[in-house]
């Protein structure tokens, strides 16, 4: 079916190979991604044993239960693995991504046709029905030329779920992709989201991770032409024993493109562990680009650990702006003092500060009920402090 790629953005021009341990060569071939030992740069933070055998790649027919709300004109269909692979989006960058694409037995395509402007959000709920299930997923989201849409992907329930998600944002299109990882406590979730941003296209990818025993997501963005813009925004809240890992990679493959990464996390409880990796590569061709990446962590109790690693590789001298920042700390005593000096009790002052910390991102989501739900979820998490 050639149609699967008809609205897609163009394939990238042939780029110079960049030798780097930060971002391996993309490939659909599982054999091209060796089984990790745990010492590799891209695996060293992940507790491999807790992936519940996903790296072994045993076949499974189990699925997540899908519910969807599709506005008129938007379609959800199944396509073959080959059709999905033909799309102009980067191939998997690690073994988990390659395994998901290889084992899912086809992909689900969410298609927003060219020129369609959808005001109401497209809602997909993906529910894990048994924690003992191993589920391979392959999802394609395609937003056509000059189309505009908001897509909510809501992960709930439990499973050991490994997914490869391809996102095509065609030239001039605008996409808000809001992913909520609100799993039950025993879920395992690995996902690679590869986004290709078309010429003058705009994507805002929101990611909220609250639940799950282990969540490891990689979001990789590259650009099919100049003028593309990507905001990668995330909020996470790790409780005792939880491992939450978010890996971001902005690959500036075209001139005058923009990337902005902002992830904010809170941790509480013994062995709550979060990992944030922010990689940016500015290729020789990518002149006059602008990039900023930032990660802020609020450590609420003893016994929690936040790893935060920004990496910036620059191969051109002509850059409009490039920077990164990372902070990890406890409550700012000055904030608490100021609020308390106005009569606000300490516990309420803490709550206000945490809400404020996250609201910076939550308020930017264009779906009011999801905003409310996340504010409530943060409130709920804080009640456990």
């Amino acid at each position, binding site marked *: 079916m050639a149609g699967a790629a008809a609205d897609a953005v163009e394939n990238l021009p042939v780029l110079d190979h960049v030798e780097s341990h930060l971002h391996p060569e993309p490939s659909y071939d599982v054999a091209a991604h060796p089984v990790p030992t745990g010492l590799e740069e891209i695996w060293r933070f992940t507790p491999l044993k807790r992936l519940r055998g996903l790296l072994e790649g045993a076949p499974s027919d189990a699925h997540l239960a899908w519910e969807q709300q599709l506005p008129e004109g938007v379609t959800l269909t199944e396509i073959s693995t080959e059709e999905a692979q033909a799309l102009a989006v980067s191939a998997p960058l690690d073994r988990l991504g390659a395994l998901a694409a290889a084992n899912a037995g086809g992909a689900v395509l969410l298609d927003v046709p060219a020129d369609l402007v959808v005001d109401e959000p497209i809602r997909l709920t993906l529910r894990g029905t048994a924690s003992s299930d191993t589920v391979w997923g392959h999802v394609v989201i395609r937003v056509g030329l000059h189309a505009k849409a908001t897509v909510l992907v809501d992960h709930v329930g439990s499973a050991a779920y490994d997914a490869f998600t391809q996102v095509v944002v065609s030239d001039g299109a605008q996409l808000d992709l809001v992913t909520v990882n609100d799993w039950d406590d025993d879920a395992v979730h690995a996902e690679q989201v590869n986004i290709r941003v078309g010429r003058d296209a705009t994507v805002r990818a929101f990611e909220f991770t609250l639940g799950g025993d282990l969540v490891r997501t990689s979001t990789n963005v590259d650009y099919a032409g100049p003028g593309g813009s990507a905001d990668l925004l995330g909020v996470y809240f790790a409780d005792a024993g939880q491992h939450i890992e978010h890996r971001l990679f902005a690959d500036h493959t075209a001139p005058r493109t923009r990337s902005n990464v902002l992830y904010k996390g809170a941790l509480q409880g013994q062995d709550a562990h979060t990992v944030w990796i922010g990689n940016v590569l500015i290729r020789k061709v990518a002149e006059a680009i602008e990039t900023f990446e930032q990660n802020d962590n609020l450590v609420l109790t003893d016994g929690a650990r936040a790893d935060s690693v920004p990496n910036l590789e620059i191969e051109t001298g002509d850059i409009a702006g490039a920077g990164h920042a990372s902070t990890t700390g406890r409550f700012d005593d000055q*904030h608490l003092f*100021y*609020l308390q*000096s106005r009569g606000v009790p*300490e516990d309420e002052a803490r709550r206000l*500060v945490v809400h*404020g910390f996250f609201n910076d991102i939550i308020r930017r989501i264009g779906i009011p009920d999801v905003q409310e739900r996340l504010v409530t979820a943060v409130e709920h998490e804080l009640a456990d402090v």
Partner: protein
Amino acid sequence: MSTLEIKNLHVSVDTEDGAKEILRGVDLTINSGEIHAIMGPNGSGKSTLAYSIAGHPKYDVTDGEVLLDGQNVLELSVDERARAGLFLAMQYPVEVPGVSVANFLRTAKTAIDGEAPKLRTWVKDVNAALERVTLDPAFAQRSVNEGFSGGEKKRHEIAQLELLNPKFAVLDETDSGLDIDALKVVSDGVNRYSGQGDRGVLLITHYTRILRYIEPDFVHVFVAGRLAETGGRELADELEASGYDKYVKAAAV
């Protein structure tokens, strides 16, 4: 009628070289209806006095009492002091990202009054308080003090003073860094608050300029961690003419 009594207050801070005493026995009584100006050179301990009354954890009270209508507020937490009726307008108001002014003010008002303000009148009250200090009501939707100019932060402190209407207000160099228009706006706010008749003001300042707009009942010279002299308005005029040298030299002997 309320009274704020500061008795023999000694306060230290931790430094690399161990505890350093900043306040060395402060005695001062403020009755409601009075405006007391405390003037002193840099480093005399004026701000330490303000923050110690409010309960900032950095300052260690080693001796003395601060009594609000007989209750020793030094035994109270920071928020309990505020609910008891104390207010500190800070020299450097703190930015609290992501917390809107509207949410902050409502939360504070609810805490101080023990019940939520009536929604119907509250929004009007907030807008009016902001407008009185020439802040656009749109400030209510901004994060507390974030991106405010120095003058906007000080005017925001005065708007809070009027909305929370405490028994006693300590103003820590609220006048510093203000241009003349902002200084008038801030002074008008303090005069409205004080003009209620049953509120007390402790106005800490480095300059006499603000006393052209706010009429003090008492002026105190603060040097080397304690009061060196007390008088009326004429003392401020003398300081304007001759500076603090006389007092600093006397304290150094």
